[in-house]
C-alpha cells in the first residue's frame, strides 16, 4: 500500500516526464549560455533583458532538477518553477509588446517565447499538467 503510494507520487521523472526534463535541459543550456554571454559581453546594452534571461535560465535549471529528483520536495520545486515560468513568459511577453523600449534586446521570454518557437509558453503548461497528472 505504502509502496503503491510512493510509486505513484514519485513518477515525475519517468515516461513523458523524461521528455519534459530533456526539453527543460535544452532550454536550461540555451538560456544559460545566452544570458551568460550577454551579461559577460554587453550587459550595459539591455540590463533588464539580460537579467531576465538569467532568471529564466535559473528557473529552467531548477525546474529540470526538481522534475528529475521526483520526490515530494522535487515536485514542489518543479511546481514553483513552472508557476514562475508561466507568469514570467506571459508577463514579459505582454510587457515586451507594451513597452518594447525596455527590451532593446530579446530575452528567452519576450514575445511569449516567439524566438524559440513559443516552446517557452508551452513548457510550463505541460509541466503543470504533468505534475497534476502524476500527483
Amino acid at each position: 500500500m505504502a509502496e503503491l503510494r510512493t510509486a505513484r507520487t514519485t513518477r515525475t521523472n519517468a515516461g513523458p516526464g523524461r521528455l519534459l526534463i530533456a526539453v527543460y535541459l535544452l532550454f536550461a543550456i540555451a538560456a544559460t549560455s545566452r544570458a551568460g554571454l550577454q551579461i559577460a559581453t554587453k550587459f550595459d546594452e539591455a540590463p533588464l533583458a539580460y537579467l531576465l534571461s538569467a532568471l529564466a535560465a535559473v528557473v529552467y535549471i531548477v525546474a529540470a532538477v526538481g522534475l528529475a529528483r521526483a520526490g515530494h520536495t522535487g515536485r514542489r520545486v518543479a511546481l514553483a518553477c513552472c508557476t514562475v515560468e508561466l507568469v514570467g513568459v506571459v508577463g514579459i511577453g505582454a510587457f515586451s509588446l507594451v513597452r518594447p523600449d525596455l527590451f532593446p534586446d530579446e530575452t528567452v521570454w519576450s514575445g511569449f517565447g516567439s524566438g524559440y518557437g513559443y516552446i517557452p509558453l508551452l513548457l510550463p503548461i505541460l509541466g503543470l499538467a504533468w505534475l497534476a497528472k502524476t500527483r
Partner: protein
Amino acid sequence: MSHSAPYSRRQGDCAYGLPGWRIETDRTAAAPQTGVTSRRSPTAGVTGGPYGALLRRLVEWGGERLERRATPVSGTGSPIDGVPAVAAIVVSLLVAAWALVATLRHRAPDRVQLIGLAVLELILLGLAVLAGVALAGGERPGEPGAFFGYLVTLVCLPPLAAVLARMEPTRWGSAIVCAICLVTPVVVVRLQQTWELLGG
C-alpha cells in the same frame, strides 16, 4: 434585384471574403514589379521562427550551389557552410522522423536511432574540425563567444539524446531523440549565422 442586390452583395462580402479578392488583384498587379525577388517566394510565407530560418537557409544554400556550379569560386566562405552542414541537417531531420514514427508506434529507441545519432555526431565533429582548421588558418567568426557556445552545445546534443534514450527504454525515449534531433538543425543554422555576422 434592385432591392436585394446591395444586401446580398454585402452578405457575400462577409461570407466569401472580399479581402481575398483584393489580395488576388493586388498580387496580379504587384507580380511584374517583384519579378526580380520572386526567387525567394517559396519560403515567403513561413520565414518566421526557428524553422523559417532553417528553410530559408536550405533554399539559399541550394541557390548558392547552383551559382557555384555556374561560376566556380575558390572556397573563401564560411567553413561551416556547404555539404557537411547540410548533411548534418538532413541526417538530423531523418533521425527525428524515424524517432517520431517509433514514438507513434509505441517503440523504444532502436538501433537505427542510436546509429543515426552516432552518424550525426560524427558529422558534427567534422564540422567542429572544419571550424578549428579555419580558425588555425586565421579566420574568425563574427561572434566568437556565441559561435563557440553553439559549437560546444551542438557537439553535446547527440550524446545527450543517446544517454537520455538509454535511460528511458519506452516510447518516450524515442520522443526525446525526436525532440533533440529537431533542435539540432536549428543550432546548426544559428552556428552559421554567428560565424557570418562580421564577414557579411
